[in-house]
Structure formats: C-alpha cells, structure tokens
C-alpha cells in the first residue's frame, strides 16, 4: 500500500473513532468496514468535473448509517471543512447521522435500507438514455440483501444491460442483531447474483489493488456487482466481528486503545 493512501486510511479511521466517541454515535463497525472502498473510489475511480466539489460519476451510499466514513473522506478530499466535520453529533449540525444530500459532495440521502440501489439504477438509466459515459457506483450493506427492492433492482439492471452501474456489497457478514448467516441465509451469493444476470467480482474489500481492479468497469452488457468481503470494525481488534459495535461508541479508554491500534497498523 502506498504511503499516502495508508496515511489517508489512518486519518479517516482516526476521525471515525474520535467523532463516534465525541458524538456517542452508533455504527462504527460498519464505518470501519468501508474505509478502503471509499478511499479507492474517491482517490482513483470517481471522475471529477471542472466544477469544484462536483463529480462526473455518481456515488450513492445506500448504507446511510455509515455516513461518518463518507463525511471523513469528503473532508480528506477538501470538500468538507474541518469545522463542518467536527460539528458531527452537535445540535443543528449539517452532518446528520444518516447520510444527507444537504452536505456538499453528497448527491442522495439514505437511511432506510433498500433505497440506494433503485435510485442508482435510475441514475445509470438516465446516463444511458442521454448517451453519457457517466458511471454510477452504489455501496450497499449485506443486510440490504434482505430487502426485496435489492432483487427487484438487480433484475431490472441486468435486463437493461446497465454496464455503467457498479454495485458494491459491503459483505462484513454482521447485521444489526447477529451474523448474516444467522439472520436470513443469503449464500450462495456469487451464484445467486450471477443468476440474476450480473457480472460478479468476489474480492477482499480491504485490499486496495483488488478494489482498484474490480472497480474498473469493462463489461459490455452487464451491471457489475462487487462482493467486497470485509470485516466489521476493521482495524480495531476488540471491535472486529463484534455485533456490539453496530451500536456502541467507544469510551475514553476504548478510544485510546483503538487509536493506538489504528495508528500502529
């Protein structure tokens, strides 16, 4: 991993930990599982326009509860100010705890699961209709695979050959109450999604090179679905694979320990 990228990842994780602690907010585990995905998207994939703070390609965070990770990368990219980022958790902040389109650099608000993918499809369909080469990336959670809209949407995307659409599944294997496998069985996932007519890439969602490769859309007539195998709470040993960190925020002692682990990684 190059030094700059490593530095950004550490900085984002540090902010996630500090701000969760300060705001006493939930969803830290699902934020830590998507940091590398966001870094690759914003550093290497999403194309910018000449207009400041605007991207040519569309990104939608469908797992809106992981907004803090997105706010942090937007700060790293100079789209959000430090003052705004540090307002997270305060009364009347712009940064609500589910992703908000009122925040610069964010196109669509989510929070209720199963909404982002159909919207991303509408965006991709619009690009096709207008003969634009704009691409659409949408990051969904594995819990969203329980939603009927996810499967309605995948069928539609495959039928319309939306090869400008990339769905990234944050497959951290933990939902809200317990493991995915104990909630609603979704395996065999690769086979299931392939059978819906999508091109599937099964990768390590923390591996920068694998992410970069998977996020290059080349298929001529199929939407791409990336199953990004991740670890919920990645980078902090006592948070990893632990359901408690879907809800808990770190206390001062836990924060100190977590920051030490993240910065020594």
């Amino acid at each position: 991993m190059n030094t700059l990228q490593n530095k950004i990842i550490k900085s984002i994780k540090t902010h996630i930990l500090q701000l969760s602690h300060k705001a006493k907010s939930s969803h830290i585990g699902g934020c830590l599982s998507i940091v590398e995905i966001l870094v690759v998207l914003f550093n290497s994939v999403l194309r910018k326009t000449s207009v400041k703070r605007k991207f040519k390609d569309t990104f939608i965070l469908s797992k809106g509860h992981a907004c803090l990770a997105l706010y942090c990368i937007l700060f790293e990219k100079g789209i959000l100010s430090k003052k705004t980022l540090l307002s997270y958790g305060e009364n009347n902040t712009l940064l609500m705890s589910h992703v908000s389109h009122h925040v610069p650099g964010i196109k669509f608000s989510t929070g209720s699961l199963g909404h982002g993918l159909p919207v991303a499809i509408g965006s991709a369909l619009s690009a096709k209709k207008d003969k634009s080469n704009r691409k659409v990336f949408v990051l969904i959670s594995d819990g969203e695979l329980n939603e009927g809209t996810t499967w309605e949407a995948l069928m539609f995307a495959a039928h319309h050959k939306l090869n400008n659409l990339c769905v990234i599944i944050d497959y951290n294997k933990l939902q809200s109450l317990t493991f995915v496998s104990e909630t609603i069985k979704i395996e065999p996932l690769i086979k299931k999604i392939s059978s819906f007519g999508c091109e599937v890439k099964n990768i390590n969602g923390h591996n920068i090179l694998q992410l970069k490769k998977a996020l290059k859309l080349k298929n001529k007539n199929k939407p791409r679905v990336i199953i990004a195998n991740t670890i919920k709470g990645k980078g902090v040993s006592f948070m990893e694979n632990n359901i408690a960190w879907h809800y808990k925020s770190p206390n001062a002692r836990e924060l100190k320990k977590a920051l030490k682990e993240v910065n020594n990684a």
Partner: protein
Amino acid sequence: MRNIFIEELILAAKKNKKIVLIVNDLGYSVVEKFAKMFPNQFYNAGVAEQNMMGIASGMALEGNHVFVYSIGNFPTFRCAEQIRNDVDYHNLPVTIVNVGAGVSYGSLGYTHHSLQDYGLMRLFPNMIIASPGDDMEVRACMKYIVKNSQPSYLRLAKTKNKILHKKIPNVKPGKWLPISTKHTQSKKIFLTTGNIASLAKDLLIRAKYNKFSLYSLPIWGMKFKNIQLNQLKKWDEVLVLEDHLEDGGFGSWIKESTNNQKIKTKIISKSIDKKIISKVGSEQYLLDKYYLKFFGK
C-alpha cells in the same frame, strides 16, 4: 381522463427529451402511443413498484421529469416510503399518476379503490396534489405540472367525465376555480376536488341545492393550506365534496385550514361512507349507495 393525460404528456415530450414515462406493467391501450413515439423515454419497471419509484427518483435526480403511471394503491401506498424519502425529501420532479380515483375501479374491489390516497399525499411537504374534475382541468393540471416540475400527484378518473369547463381553465395551486356561479347571492357553495365535480354538478339541479354555486380546487397540498381561510370567509356555507374517506381527506384538509380560528362560514364535508369497504359494483352503484345518500332526495 387517461387519454387526455397521455395527449398532454405527448405534447410535453415532443418539446422536451427529459420527459420520461415509467409504468409498472400497466397502461394497456393508454401508454402504447407514447412508448412508440418516444422509445428512449419509456420504461416498464415490471410489477415492482418500490423499485419503480426509486428508479424514477434516480432519473429525476439527473434532471428528468419522470411520470410514474399506475393504478390506485400501487404507485402510492405500495411505495410510500420511496415517495417520502426519495421523491419528496429530495424535492424531485416525479409525477405520480393514479388512474383509479375514488371508486373508479368499482367492481375490482377494495384493493383497487383509492379511498385513502389524499391522506397519504397530504403528508408530504413538497408534494402538490392535482385532482382534476374534468378533461379541461386535466389539461390545465398537466400544463401546470410540466411547467413547474416538482413532486406531484395526479389523480385521474378512469371513465369519461362531464365537461365542466368550455376551455382550459387557468389553474393556480390552492386557488378555487369557479364552475357554476349562477347564484352567488346565496353565499352557499359546493367545493370539490377531482372526479366528484361531475356529481356535484348533478346535485345543483336538486331543489335543495339549486341556489348553490360550484367551485373546484384542482391543485392543492400542504403548501397551499394557508391560503384557504380567506377564500372560505367569503361564503356562508361551504359544502366540501370528495370521493375519499373522511379521515385524512380533502374535507379534513379544508377544515384544518381554518386553524381553529372562529369564522362565520359553516363548513360541512361529505366524504364516502366507510361501509363501502369490501363492497363492489359499478362506480355509479357504489356512489349511489355509499355517498349520494348523504344528500337526500
């Protein structure tokens, strides 16, 4: 009304490539002409209304004005959260077109009746409700909606309606539209929205109501509630008519608009009897039995 809607949509699409029509596998004998003329602006989302509304939002997010065409509860209650979070919250130009106003689909039963839809659409702060009373009002509403792209709900009757206006009226949101004003000195009026205007026109012939005037309100919604009071104040009696249940309906909206201020105007609303639920028959039969009884002989 459906065909008038499509005519107006075709007129709009001829001028604007950003006009899009999405259906949920419905619209037989209505949407084909549009689909043929504008193949790149027409999509069938299949029988998947939540996905359809999400897709409509995504297309609207990219600058399209998307018309979502369906029946009754399918483009409304079935995808209520998509309307709330995706369309209305983002203030996107999506027009939800419901072709089954009131009990238009009488014999198809309760699953196809629109008796609570105003109640849902009234809840969304950015939503305008367009509920035309005749073909001319459909044209007027469509022209307004096309010109003023925003979250909107267009509620249409299935069958042919009486012509109430000789020409396309000039509609303004929240503003009552005169249909019959022969007896303004009586200071008593019917106020209607939507399909029920035809029925109100028939009631004017009855001795009990022959001194009444008739007004319709084709475009309304949360944003225009605060301009009702001044219009109400002009009259001694306003009889509000709707083909909807009382709770959450148009009559409730008009009553709420007074905000408990004391006004001398007597406001009475006549809504459909809730006993209609589970009853079937033609639209006329259902209205005779569960609505017109409120008006006496």
